[in-house]
């Protein structure tokens, strides 16, 4: 499972946020350039429709592939009380042949995510990602991607959690988000 908080920030403030985050997290940023291919299962295959994402990290000299499955958000009384989003997530590194082996899945949409991320520990492992989501106009033409919303970028604070320890993870993420909210702009939302 993972704990997720999503927010937005205007592009003009991204630089300031980066400096703030560097001070807050104590680590250097890591550049991010990920080609996400979102696959959906072919109709009539299996009981329910499912979707998985193939992430190709283009920042490395050799592109590395990851497959990720994200489930629906946690619901219920427990979910009402916490101010973050908890959802099941499974991730795994794969080889580049994963795309070919995923029979029964067809490409639903793809996007290019460009930005930076901070990975640090603050009670638990937290990752803050500030990125611009770009849509790819022609199939797989990652060089010609344009931002979906040019003026706004996405900020995501995620932390892995399990069903046992999610309470403390939630607390860490919440407190961190408050810091950012205080330091950052008032455009922040959850």
């Amino acid at each position, binding site marked *: 499972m993972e704990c997720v908080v999503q927010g937005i920030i205007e592009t003009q403030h991204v630089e300031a946020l980066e400096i703030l985050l560097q001070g807050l997290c104590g680590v250097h940023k890591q550049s991010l350039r990920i080609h996400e291919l979102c696959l959906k299962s072919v109709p009539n295959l299996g009981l329910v429709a499912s979707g998985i994402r193939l992430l190709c990290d283009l920042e490395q000299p050799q592109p590395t592939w990851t497959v990720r499955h994200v489930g629906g958000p946690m619901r219920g009384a427990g979910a009402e009380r916490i101010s973050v989003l908890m959802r099941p997530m499974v991730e795994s590194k794969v080889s580049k042949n994963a795309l070919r082996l995923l029979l029964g899945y067809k490409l639903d*949409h793809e996007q290019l995510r460009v930005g930076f991320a901070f990975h640090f520990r603050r009670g638990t492992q937290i990752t803050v990602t500030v990125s611009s989501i770009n849509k790819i*106009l022609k*199939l797989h033409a990652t060089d010609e991607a344009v931002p979906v*919303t040019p003026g*706004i970028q996405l900020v995501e604070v995620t932390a892995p959690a399990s069903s046992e320890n999610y309470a403390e993870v939630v607390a860490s993420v919440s407190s961190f988000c408050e810091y950012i909210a205080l330091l950052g*702009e008032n455009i922040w939302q959850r």
Partner: protein
Amino acid sequence: MEGVVVGQDQQQQQQQQQQQAGRVMVEGLNPAVQQQLNLESVKTRAVSLFKAISRILEEFDAIARTNALPKWQDILGQFSMVNLELYNIVEDIKKVSKAFVVHPKNVNAENAAILPVMLSSKLLPEMEVEDNVKREQLLHSMQNLSVASQIEKLKVRIDMIGAACESAEKVIADTRKAYFGTRQGPTLLPTIDKAQAAKIQEQENLLRTAVNLGEGLRIPGDQRHITSGLPGHLVDVLAVADGPQSFADSSGTYLKNTPPFSSSNVNSQGALLQVSGALRAAASPSGTTSFDTTTASPLQHVNSPRSSANMMNTPSPQQQTHQQQQQQQQQQQQQQQLQQLQQRQKMMQLPQHQQQLLAQQQLRQASIPGLGQPQMQFSQPLGAQQFQGRQLASGALHHGMGQSQLNQGNQLNRHLNQFSSPMNTALFNSAQSTPTSQMISNMSAMMPSQTLLPRMQIGMSGGTRNLAAANLSDQMFNMGGNNPGMMSIQQQQQQQHGTFANMSQNTQNLQQGMMPLQNTPQQTHPSFQQQRPQGQQ
């Protein structure tokens, strides 16, 4: 008890010594203390106490030596006297000794030895060295001056450092305020007008749905062509024949451009597979019906002397007897002429692709007056001699097929007709027989549309066996409507560069008239494609 007494004794002596030393120093300083404490009397009392304790110790020695029973009552009485006397002395000293005497409270055998070290104010040797070094550094420049001035200078230094720290803190605070002030200034304006906020909100929703749900990122199906070059990380992932499998939409792209088939089978890749599978499964063991979809094709083997012979000869009695067998497969061949029938009969023995080639030839030669029987028949495999005797007819026919190839194909055909699995039969034939080149050209002829070519090519990929380039290049199928895209797609296939290049030349020569015949072979191509690896093994 002894230890305690001894300890007390030591303590008293220590105190006396210290007191004396202190008295030397204190004498001048604090005469009032002297009035408080009559030091002489303290000394006298301590001495008498010391004597009493030594007397008791001597008695203990005597008792111990003689092993007599000590009189405990007396001894205890003496001990209590000594104890009381010590207590009084210590009390008197305590009143005045705070300034210059350390009075350990708990002296016992354990710490009696270490007490002097602990009480000493002298540093340990290494600490002392460190201390000296630091002091040296500090006072290096000031050693010549007096102590007071040294103290002054040190004080100045301390003040300067303090001032520097304070100013640094101030600067940091100011900078922080200024930084946040400029950033937060514009946005802290309470008047973010509603329109702006609404715009931002709308943009945010757009972004969120794009990230989480993919809204606005989906490319419509008709635009899902891999037109430009693939990015580096996808080049070797997608440039494979199996690509369409994982991209049903893109496979839909392939399918979209295919001309509508008269048969209802080809609407989706899956349907293709299903149909071809059904067709194959329904084939009879004799192998004659294994080419359900292809028996109807009047295409003739390109380089087969049979084809030419068929064109020239009348159908043999053998061939005519089998005309009834394939009636159901002749749906599209109704208008075919006897020449086509003959060719088909020959083709029965050939692999499916060869049959297609023959059918193509038949179509091309539609001008030849037909025999009026639209149905093809597939006779038993003819003897090889029959083929050898035939000659390639006109230059319009493709020459390249040598007789040896034909013989090989015939033998294989005969052998393969016994196969129970029609799919394997077809593939095996296509894979093993050298007339594959002709099959390829037939297939390409039958699929003038660009999008059909990939399937065809895929099916052909297993057939790159000893294909003489000359064969293909000689093939003169006039396929007028061929798109150059065919060639490009062929070139993309990694497995058979030579073959496809030749094929492309040939396919362009194929006539358009072959089109109706292409439906059936196309249906089987995917199955070939998939079965090929099995067949080849």
